[in-house]
C-alpha cells in the first residue's frame, strides 16, 4: 500500500483491504463438541482473550459466521450435522480442526468416530494436541490470519473454477 504525501490518503489494492478486513474479525460458529470445546472457551475467556482478534463473538447461527472451529471428536451420528452446518455458512469460510480427534481421529481409532474431520469438510489449519493449549489454538488462528492475508480465498476460488 502507498501513502500520498499530503492529505494522508491511504491507497492500496482493494483486494488487500478486503483480506485485511476479513481476517480482522473472523467470527467463529459455536462448534464445540468435547474436551477441546472447554479449551476453546478458555481461549475466549479473559486470560487468553480472543477478543483482541475481534473473535469473541461466537455466533450461534452458522449463517452469521465465517470460521468453524471443529473442537472435539466427531462421531458417526454427528457427521451429517457437521456437514450441514458447514454448508449453511456463507462464503468465504474457513475451517480450523482443533485437537487430535478432529484432525485425525486422535486417541480413538474405532467404529464410532470419523478419523479426521477432513473426511467431511475441507480444513485450512490443523491444530494438534489433546487438548491443545489455548496458546496453540491462538497460534493456529494467527496462521489462518496469515493465510487469509496472503490471498488464500482468491486462490481457492481460482483453483476451483
Amino acid at each position: 500500500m502507498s501513502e500520498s504525501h499530503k492529505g494522508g490518503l491511504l491507497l492500496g489494492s482493494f483486494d488487500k483491504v478486503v483480506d485485511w478486513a476479513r481476517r480482522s474479525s473472523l467470527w467463529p460458529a459455536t462448534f464445540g463438541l468435547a474436551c477441546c470445546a472447554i479449551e476453546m472457551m478458555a481461549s475466549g475467556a479473559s486470560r487468553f482473550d480472543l477478543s483482541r482478534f475481534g473473535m469473541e463473538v461466537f455466533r450461534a447461527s452458522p449463517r452469521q459466521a465465517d470460521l468453524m472451529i471443529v473442537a472435539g471428536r466427531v462421531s458417526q451420528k454427528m457427521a451429517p450435522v457437521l456437514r450441514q452446518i458447514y454448508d449453511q455458512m456463507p462464503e468465504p469460510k474457513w475451517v480450523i480442526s482443533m485437537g487430535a480427534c478432529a484432525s485425525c481421529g486422535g486417541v480413538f481409532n474405532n467404529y464410532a468416530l470419523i478419523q479426521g474431520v477432513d473426511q467431511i469438510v475441507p480444513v485450512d489449519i490443523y491444530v494438534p494436541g489433546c487438548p491443545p493449549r489455548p496458546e496453540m489454538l491462538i497460534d493456529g488462528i494467527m496462521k489462518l490470519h496469515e493465510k487469509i492475508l496472503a490471498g488464500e480465498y482468491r486462490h481457492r476460488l481460482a483453483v476451483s473454477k
Partner: protein
Amino acid sequence: MSKASAALIARLESKFAGVFALSASLGDDVIVTVDPSRWIEAAKWLSTEGGFGFLSNLSAVDWLTREPRFEIVYNLTNFSLPQRLMVKLPVDGNPPSCPSVTAIWPTANFHEREAFDMFGIVFDGHPNLERILMPDEWEGHPLRKDYAIGKVPIEFKHLSPGV
C-alpha cells in the same frame, strides 16, 4: 464378609430360597446370580420391602463362549443402611431377551436402551426400545465380542493398526 452383607444374604435366602445363588465376591460385595424365571417377582420385592429402591446401574456383559451368552448386571443401592447388591441375570435366546424393569425402577429406561443398542438384548415391556447412542439406521451391535472394533489402517506407515 461383614455382618451387614451376611445378614443380607441370609435374608435373601429366607425370602427367596434357591432363587439367588451367591457368586464369588470381593471383600464386602454381595454378588448373586438370579434365576430368570423368578427375577421380576424378586425385583419387585427388592425394590419395596427389600429396601433396594434405587437402581444405580444396569449393564450387560457378553460372555462369548459361555452358555447363556449374555448377562445383565443390576447394581442396587439401599440408601438407609447403606448397602449395595449386585444381581446378575443370565440372558439367552435369539435375539437375546429378558423382561424390562422400567416399571420397577424407571431409571432403567436409558440403561436398557443402551444395552439394546450395544448388545442387541431385547427388553420386553420397555416403553421405547430404540437405539440411543448409535445412529438409528446402524446395523450391528458394537459391544458384542464378535463385532470388530473397526480400526482404520494408518496411512503411509505400512503398519497394521494395533502395533
